[in-house]
């Protein structure tokens, strides 16, 4: 298969699967089989592309021109490849998990759920492989719209309100700021192609650069930079598989990935470093990291706590870009993968707890760990990875981010990373500790389906809800040992020829 066809397939395959899913509305088993098969096929194609990229090629595909000079085109560079692999790989896990979760909860409108999910993945692939900012923006908006029905899934007043916040903030920022930034870039630079070293150097008055960067940084609402972060907690009304894949991986990572792309390929790290245009962004990101962590500690709802944790962790990546050093970019890129693996584990565990016990508040979860050891074990590993302890993947991304801060001479930012890690411990580990060590008060109303089961022995959620988080927990562990491969992949981006490597 030629790389061009492969790129086109990564976008069209999930999109085409939606038709099959729609037809199979009344036959759930077949429908889920299609969903799984598509996920598998997509991952295989993406792996094929990964091989091509690792060989040093940058496959391209050109669809057609939308406006004169502005085309829908794709080009795979290492950052996009990384995001593509993460999103496609975790889709398989989530597809398995969705089956357990959606059936375990007897959710309605499951076909709509799977259709929107597939469109969202298709859009994520488009974002990952976009060759220019224009293409990226188009798929960015497709992703926003396709996830709206997922957030509003329950069709209750709460869901409708949450979905309204979700769409309101994401559309406002993307059309209100990002679109203006893109047209502005187009007017001054005459191109929107992603190019190593950026396209803005000498094209625009340097005093305007921070302003343009602000339009991008706040315009990329999916990166959840404060004060445009409210949509993420609001999106937690969605079923947990949505929170897991989209609001820990695809959607939010699409945001920070776009942030990295803008920093590296539109502005160029050198331009940011020499003009200091991103200095202010560093402080805003640092504020987001700390403030979101503190808010997370106050949340008793498990998913809300994880959501604020995500806001905090996303700003790590924004901060990595704003440091404007090669190591910062490396750390940011790695954190896309590391945080994705860790956070999806946490969310899937939260979902498993909900399916098994219908509990959402942390204070109600005392002693649950002894009943659900696998779920809690996976949660523990995921939490440690987010905190950044070896031997888990999260350690490496924090390592490189810290190195980046040191390289930029930003001692305060190093401090921010350290304080934030401590805060991570403070809000993640109590969940585990309560589960394993605190006694439960009163008999546990535990049920699967209608049958109530007495509270003793191991009482996990359905198999399909427990296996996926365990898999990703193992993934966190593996990432620690395979971080070198990610480093090799990202190396040409972070250290283009001529820059010294550590």
């Amino acid at each position, binding site marked *: 298969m030629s790389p061009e066809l492969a790129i086109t397939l990564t976008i069209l395959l999930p999109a085409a699967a939606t038709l099959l899913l729609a037809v199979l509305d009344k036959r759930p088993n077949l429908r889920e089989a299609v969903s799984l098969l598509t996920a598998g096929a997509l991952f295989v194609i993406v792996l094929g592309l990964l091989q091509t990229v690792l060989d040093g090629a940058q496959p391209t595909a050109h669809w*057609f*021109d*939308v*406006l*004169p000079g502005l085309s829908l085109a794709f080009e795979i560079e290492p950052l996009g490849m990384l995001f593509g692999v993460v999103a496609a790989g975790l889709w398989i896990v989530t597809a398995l998990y969705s089956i357990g979760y959606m059936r375990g909860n007897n959710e309605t409108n499951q076909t709509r759920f799977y259709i929107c999910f597939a469109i969202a993945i298709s859009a994520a692939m488009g974002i990952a492989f976009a060759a220019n900012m224009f293409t990226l*923006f*188009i798929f960015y*908006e*497709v992703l926003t*719209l396709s996830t709206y*029905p997922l957030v*509003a899934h329950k*069709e209750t007043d709460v869901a*409708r309100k949450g979905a*309204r916040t979700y*769409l*309101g903030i994401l*559309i*406002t920022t993307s*059309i*209100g*700021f990002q*679109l*203006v930034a893109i*047209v*502005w870039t*187009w*007017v001054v630079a005459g191109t929107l192609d992603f190019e190593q070293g950026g396209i803005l150097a000498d094209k625009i008055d340097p005093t305007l650069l921070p302003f343009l960067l602000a339009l991008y940084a706040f315009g990329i609402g999916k990166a959840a930079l404060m004060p445009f972060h409210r949509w993420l907690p609001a999106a937690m009304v969605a079923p947990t598989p949505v929170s897991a894949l989209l609001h820990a991986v695809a959607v939010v990572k699409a945001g920070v990935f776009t942030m990295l792309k803008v920093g590296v390929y539109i502005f160029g790290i050198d331009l940011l470093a020499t003009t200091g245009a991103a200095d202010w962004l560093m402080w805003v990101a640092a504020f987001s990291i700390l403030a979101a962590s503190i808010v997370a500690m106050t949340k008793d709802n498990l998913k809300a706590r994880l959501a604020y944790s995500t806001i905090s962790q996303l700003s790590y990546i924004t901060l990595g870009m704003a440091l404007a050093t090669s190591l910062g970019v490396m750390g940011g890129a790695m954190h896309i993968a590391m945080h994705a693996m860790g956070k999806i584990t946490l969310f899937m565990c939260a979902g498993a707890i909900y399916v098994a016990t219908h509990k959402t508040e942390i204070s109600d979860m005392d002693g649950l760990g002894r009943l659900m050891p696998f779920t809690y074990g996976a949660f523990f590993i995921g939490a440690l990875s987010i905190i950044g302890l070896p031997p888990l993947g999260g350690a490496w991304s924090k390592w490189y981010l810290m190195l980046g801060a040191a390289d930029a001479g930003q001692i305060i930012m190093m401090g921010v990373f350290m304080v934030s890690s401590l805060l991570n411990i403070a809000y993640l580990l109590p969940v585990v500790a309560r589960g394993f060590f605190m006694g439960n008060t009163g008999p546990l109303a535990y049920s699967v389906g209608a049958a109530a089961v007495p509270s003793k022995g191991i009482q996990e959620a359905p198999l399909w809800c427990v296996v996926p988080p365990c898999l990703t927990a193992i993934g966190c562990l593996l990432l620690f040992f395979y971080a070198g491969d990610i480093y090799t992949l990202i190396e040409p981006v972070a250290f283009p020829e001529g820059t010294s490597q550590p």
Partner: protein
Amino acid sequence: MLSSLSAHMPVLQVIVLLIAAPLCALFGNRHLAWTIAFIAALAAFVISTFLLGSVLDGSVISYHLGGWAPPWGIEYRIDAANAFVLFIVSLIGVLVLPYARQSIEREFEASTHTYFYTCYLLCLTGLLGVAATGDAFNVFVFLEISSLATYALVAFGAKRDKRALTAAYNYLIMGTIGATFFVIGIGFLYMVTGTLNMADLAVRLAEVGDTRVTRVAFVFILVGMGLKLAMFPLHLWLPNAYSYAPSAITAFLAATATKVALYVLLRFTFTVFQFDFPVQELTFEYVVMPLALVAMFAASIAAVFQKDVKRLLAYSSVAQVGYMLLGVALLTEAGLTAGIIHLFNHAVTKGALFLAVGCFVYQIGSSRLGDLKGIGKTMPWTTAALTAGGLSLIGVPLTVGFISKWYLIQASLETGSLWIAGLIVASSLIAVVYVWRIVEVAYLEPAPEGRKAKEAPLSMILPTYALVAASLYFGINSELTSSAASQAAKALYSATDLAVPPMQLTPSDPPSEGAVQ
């Protein structure tokens, strides 16, 4: 035979409709009337497509009515600008007819259907005539033909809601004032130049220069057309007329009438008054642009608070006219291109939206938001069309609305005004609010008990989807529309270069033959 006919194409599309209109009434059979109307409209569409194809390279077709050479005779002059408008109007004209045939069944008695088709054809005749002609007075004549037909068409809605009568009456008064202002303006121009041919006017006005009479003439024409195209605050006739007119007519008018009026304004502004004319620049900078900006916000905010979807979309139309005028008021070629491309894009989008709403009216007899709860489950296709049109109004990528926004923002950034770009996006965010009010009600509210609604008939769904498809296709591949719009902008700007100086016209021009330049 065909080749001799093809030379007459500029006038033929008007004539065919004009002849077909009384035939509809004379035969007295509504099915036959519909067939005649459809064939005539289709012929007009084919001709205008052909015309657009032949002028897209920047050439101009000049047709001399009755063989009388301009400036004495009436000239029909087709360039990229009006060919584009002709194309839009005739496209909508032919698409709405199959829809109307079905939708008016439940809106008024069958005995009046033939008159409906007569009025419809007359209206279309007028609109096409306004766009095709190169004669200033001829514009007025056709404008009145289309307007009078429109008043009658709006009043056809009275069977469903009596308020259609007052709406039509209101429109009649306002429209007549507009037309009168316009003809007064033309009168002044004739007074100082002694000519009515637009190209000739342009040459002679440049000689007359910036006098008090030309200033007054310009302002009269601006206000007259401002009324017709619903320029804020002269839009007061529009919401009622659109709300109470029969569904098919609302869609037809929203997509064509205001657009043709805007074309006339552009033609006079950029072609007729194209000499160095400070009043015009000042008017656009200090009157039209602020009014356009106010329209974008005031009308959008008004739309948010409407309880009836038709009315909501009507207010949105006023706001969208604001976008077009804003592009024009930038007074650059890029701005003009943006205005013209939005003219097309909005015609397609609003046409699709009003057709979709018409399907609701057909099935549940109401377009009130409260009656549309949960309609997404029972009428999925119609609701999906409405949603797609709504996304285009917001300006979401892969819809025509996005192309318009892109051009508008680019044009305003090129003039260095970031604040205008900011206002454009800010007002399109208000569109998110009013579109999402509909989407939430249609999809997320539970349907009321006992409502028996099923999907609209295919003859209504298909035209709706034709326009939805156009609004998606031209949003994904805008090559045709963007090249047509930029050619149109060029044509408007450079029309005098092509004006035929009176000296060169010899009486020996062969009579009764169109001359193709």
